[in-house]
């Protein structure tokens, strides 16, 4: 995957040089990069490898997921803050993940933290158990547990 990226950059640079534009700028380079993507996509089957941008697309998907969670969770916090009467029952619960590896665990933890109403407080020593603080344990435990599955899946897609 990394090799493809370098190749892409090389193509972009080549483009940049070939253009020989006296006012060469970032946009020239970006254009070259897109050209590179196009070439690589066209050639990837020929080389018998997975197109690296597919992986990138999955990463982007993950990021978009994160942003979505971020917005949602913010709004839920704001909603609670703005309610005339605070009516929440905070608490801490556990979750055992099937993910392994530092990166995976980390990304999952970050996702969970950005999820509405939850903050990862501790990770057990072996990294398998998350201790999660919930803003309103009754309401969000369910939703949190539901979205965790979604996250794990997204992460696995990227890393597999």
């Amino acid at each position, binding site marked *: 995957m990394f090799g493809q990226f370098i190749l892409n950059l090389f193509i972009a640079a080549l483009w940049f040089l070939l253009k020989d534009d006296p006012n060469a700028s970032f946009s020239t380079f970006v254009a070259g990069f897109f050209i590179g993507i196009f070439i690589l996509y066209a050639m990837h089957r020929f080389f018998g490898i997975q197109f690296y941008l597919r992986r990138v697309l999955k990463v982007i998907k993950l990021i978009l997921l994160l942003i979505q969670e971020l917005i949602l969770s913010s709004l839920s916090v704001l909603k609670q803050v703005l309610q005339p009467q605070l009516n929440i029952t905070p608490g801490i619960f556990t979750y055992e993940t099937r993910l392994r590896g530092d990166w995976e665990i980390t990304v999952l933890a970050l996702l969970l933290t950005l999820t509405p109403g939850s903050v990862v407080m501790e990770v057990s020593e072996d990294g398998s158990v998350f*201790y999660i603080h919930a803003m309103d344990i009754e309401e969000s435990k369910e939703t949190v547990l539901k979205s965790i599955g979604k996250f794990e899946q997204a992460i696995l897609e990227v890393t597999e």
Partner: protein
Amino acid sequence: MSVNQLIELLAALLILFGAVISVISAFGMIRLPDVYTRSHAATKSATLSVLSCLLGAFIYFWIHDGFVSIRLILGIVFVFITAPVAGHLVCRAAYRSRVPLAEGSGEDALKPVLFGNDESENDMK
């Protein structure tokens, strides 16, 4: 009004949105009952506010000056990555330094793991 101006206005509104969220989350920092709940406000709402604001600024510079600010993008990425870590670390530290949960909190799965079931030891101030 040209398209550019419209996008600029949009960027400005994005910024305003961020500002409003920021104030509300700051308000949450006052209102919420304990440090853990407040950290929700900080890590999520504040992050969202700054992200929208930076995005607004990024768009504005892009449209207005034709200037793509890598630094702004980097800033956005950085905040995005680090804000949850920060929230996680502070909450962990708070719990381990025995800052109590708010009154009326529900289940506490961490207490037995960290401090055991000894009530006296868990008599957090």
